[in-house]
């Protein structure tokens, strides 16, 4: 374990310890926050009793669908936009201002289109993540050295072969940034959507606990979502590091 990782773990542990102390000593009111040890205890209970199985399954499937859709559609769109300079000129300003749009306001419209089921939430996660993947794909493709494209021509590769054998592997470092952002945005979109607008899922469970003044459950669920999001992002980061290690100049 590197010194930096040890320092990061130490900082998080210290933060939790300070929070534990402040809540136990009453500096932070129990109505405002419960001690982290109680959050963990309540989370363990919820997990072992199976109370989270249904909302977890709902949220995980929604996030997975939003992630897979935003990555596949985002990458395909990135490739198409990059290949068509006119479309690029049109898309660049739209992409630059994309995240200024509050997509949640479209939820009623999404319900009208998809019905009262999981798909409006998946759509929210999808629209949040897709632009990040498109932008990362375009960044990656812009940085593929020209010599790589000449190499593809020397080997008489078709456009699809060139994309899959040369261009996308060359752009992988940037594509990974898009993957990480897409996962984070899928989580944010789906959980926030469930929190505000849905009747199921982890986001809804947090909102329900909040409305019921059930602080233990609310904080336990918040802890769960936090740990899950960090763990998934760390897993992607590890994959990225393993993949990129071999590419770095010695």
């Amino acid at each position, binding site marked *: 374990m590197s010194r930096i990782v040890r320092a990061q773990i130490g900082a998080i542990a210290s933060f939790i310890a300070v929070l534990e102390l402040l809540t136990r000593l009453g500096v932070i009111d129990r109505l405002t926050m419960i001690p982290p040890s109680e959050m963990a205890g309540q989370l363990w209970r919820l997990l072992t009793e199976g109370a989270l199985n249904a909302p977890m399954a709902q949220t995980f499937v929604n996030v997975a669908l939003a992630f897979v859709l935003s990555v596949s559609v985002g990458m395909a769109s990135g490739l198409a936009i990059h290949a068509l300079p006119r479309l690029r000129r049109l898309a660049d300003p739209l992409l630059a201002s994309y995240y200024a749009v509050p997509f949640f306001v479209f939820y009623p419209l999404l319900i009208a289109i998809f019905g009262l089921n999981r798909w409006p939430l998946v759509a929210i996660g999808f629209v949040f993540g897709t632009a990040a993947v498109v932008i990362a794909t375009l960044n990656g493709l812009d940085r593929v*050295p020209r010599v*790589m494209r*000449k190499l593809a*021509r020397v*080997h*008489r590769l078709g456009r699809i072969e060139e994309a899959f054998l040369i261009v996308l*592997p*060359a752009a992988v470092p940037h594509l990974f940034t898009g993957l990480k952002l897409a996962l984070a945005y899928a989580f944010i979109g789906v959980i926030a959507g469930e929190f505000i607008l849905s009747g199921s899922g982890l986001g809804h469970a947090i909102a329900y606990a909040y409305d019921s003044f059930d602080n233990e459950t609310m904080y336990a669920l918040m802890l769960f979502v936090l740990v899950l999001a960090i763990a998934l992002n760390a897993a992607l980061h590890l994959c990225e590091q393993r993949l990129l290690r071999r*590419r770095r100049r*010695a």
Partner: protein
Amino acid sequence: MPEPQARLTSVTKVFETPQGAAVHALGPIDLALERGEFLTVVGPSGCGKTTLLELLAGLTVPTAGVVTFEGEPLGGRVPPGVGVVFQEDASLPWLTVWDNIAFGLRRAGVAAQEIRARVDRAVDFMGLGAFARAYPAQLSGGMRQRVCIARTLVLEPRLILLDEPFGALDQQTRLLMGDELLRLWRESGATVLLITHAIDEAVMLADRIAVMSARPGRIIDLVETGWPAQRSSRIVEDEAFGRLTAHVWSKLRAESMKALGRDQVGVSRE
């Protein structure tokens, strides 16, 4: 007269800048590459040497004139039988040295056993045996360029085009890489065209040296070296080497000054 391996007939290349201005980069050029010869091209910076190579490779099309390979006109596609080694590092960083070298053979649909035999031979030939499973990031610049040469070599091209492949290397390594290049030229029997900005390298390696003018690049002299096929970097000790180098420089000096804009500001050409 046997058909030359490749020929440029009255070839001109004019580029258009993003602002819409026309830049006359090259030509008119007439040049025939004889089968099995080693031709080097020297010229001032920006004279269109790389454009010349890309025209011969089929990577770009001429504005006027015709480029043929083995009698067939090129239509903006790289024909089978032509291999190109670029100035920039074109090794694929996500593949091992072995897989980099096998890349073109796999695309060409060569049988696995044949790929293994050809790649193993190329790895040995280029002295990469200890690094076959390494990634390009673990190699020096010279070794990465050797990987690129090996990747071209295994395809057994009849015409090998090299664009300043040793440009980023130090002088000693360049001389040694030149020896390796001569060895592979002799053993492959291929026609080789090498673009270089180093006059000594051009003279040492070539059967013929094409000297280019400042932009728009034209061939202002074709120098026969008269070297035997069994030559090496030791040829720099030959008395004729100095004479040829001086001759090429005498042709190139005025053109290099033109390229630098010095002929217009009164710098002496003597």
